[in-house]
């Protein structure tokens, strides 16, 4: 372990009601890593990922992040009245991004429905829009919850490519996945 970990969880545990979802989970990722969280439905993959993102309060253990992260959850964070363009432009403003939203739309192949309100576009298109946020500002950690859901083959290849580029540039990815992962996995945590 030469580099300090980008993100590290020590002795994490989660309790729902009286039920212990998982306990004593420790993990760490460095730049270039691609970690996959696996487990049956209800095993707490999402909860673990949310604890790493600082969204859920761990009932035991600590999380340390040395840098900022991107979060892609089950829901894409789109408002029904927003268009893909206005959504990305809004978050570009929030994060002070210099990148042209137009370029991101092109890269996500969302330039055609870019001005259609999100309540009218398909689930896959919504997901592509949400994933477009990853490109707005470079952040070393990507936390992705079932990112391949709702994407067609084309979209899956696109995302796999994005992840590969991100890791080649020294970034790390932690993804909760079920089924086969279309990405190269460097580490696996099974709950």
């Amino acid at each position: 372990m030469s580099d300090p970990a980008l993100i590290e969880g020590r002795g994490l545990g989660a309790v729902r009601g009286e039920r212990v979802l998982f306990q004593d989970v420790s993990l760490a990722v460095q730049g270039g890593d691609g970690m996959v969280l696996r487990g049956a439905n209800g095993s707490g993959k999402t909860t673990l990922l949310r604890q790493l993102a600082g969204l859920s309060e761990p009932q035991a253990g600590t999380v340390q992040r040395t840098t900022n992260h991107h979060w892609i959850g089950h829901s894409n964070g789109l408002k029904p009245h927003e268009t893909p363009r206005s959504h990305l432009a809004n978050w570009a403003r929030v994060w002070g991004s210099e990148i042209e939203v137009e370029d991101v739309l092109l890269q996500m192949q969302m330039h055609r429905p870019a001005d259609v309100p999100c309540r009218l576009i398909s689930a896959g298109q919504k997901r592509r829009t949400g994933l477009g946020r990853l490109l707005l500002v470079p952040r070393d950690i990507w936390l992705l919850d079932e990112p391949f859901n709702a994407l067609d083959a084309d979209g899956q290849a696109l995302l796999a490519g994005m992840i590969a580029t991100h890791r080649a540039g020294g970034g790390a990815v932690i993804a909760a996945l079920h089924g086969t992962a279309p990405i190269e996995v460097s580490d696996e945590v099974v709950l």
Partner: protein
Amino acid sequence: MTLPSPLLSAFRQALSEAWAGGAGVLLPFGFFAGTAVLVPFTMGSDPDLLAKIGPGVLWLALALASLVTLERVFQADLQDGALDLWVQEDGSISQIAAVKTLAHWLISGLPLVLLTPLLGMMLQVPATQTVPAMVAYALGGLTFFLWGGVAAALSASVARGGLLIALIALPFYLPTVIFGTLALDEGLGGTSILFLAASTLFALGVAPAAMGAALRLAAD
């Protein structure tokens, strides 16, 4: 002074959300006008009676408007995942919640202030009370929205939380209603308008922190 960009963006987003969610400001205008029009039919058209109850009815309409509007605000954020994104903005979720509440007050609360001269005339509110009423509705509406926002944030994860919000928010609305009603009688020179302003400031100080904590819980 410029607002930090997350707050400005949150404000813009909330404003467009409130605008899109209710056919612009047409809906709140219609709601207040409709309430005012119903009153004479339910209570009788006696001018003295209307002058007495008119301002109070408008307070009630304002409180209702805040409860009905806020029910969906944070719940929608939770369901579409936007709340996750806001919570992760470093430490500013309280301010963002305040800014969102402010935006919704602008769209759904402020119309009553603008309508007051007209509705007041229709409900026989004495002309001397018009200006105090506008000030009081502005301050009081903001306070309603702030405390209502706390209740809404607390019950964001509750399906059909509307009744719960009303029950939770009720005690917090009381000082506003009391000072607001008294301020209308006393006018701008009285002490009640100062108390009302003070309770608005108090809400501005306390409610955002509570909303922030509640939204963190809702996202958890």
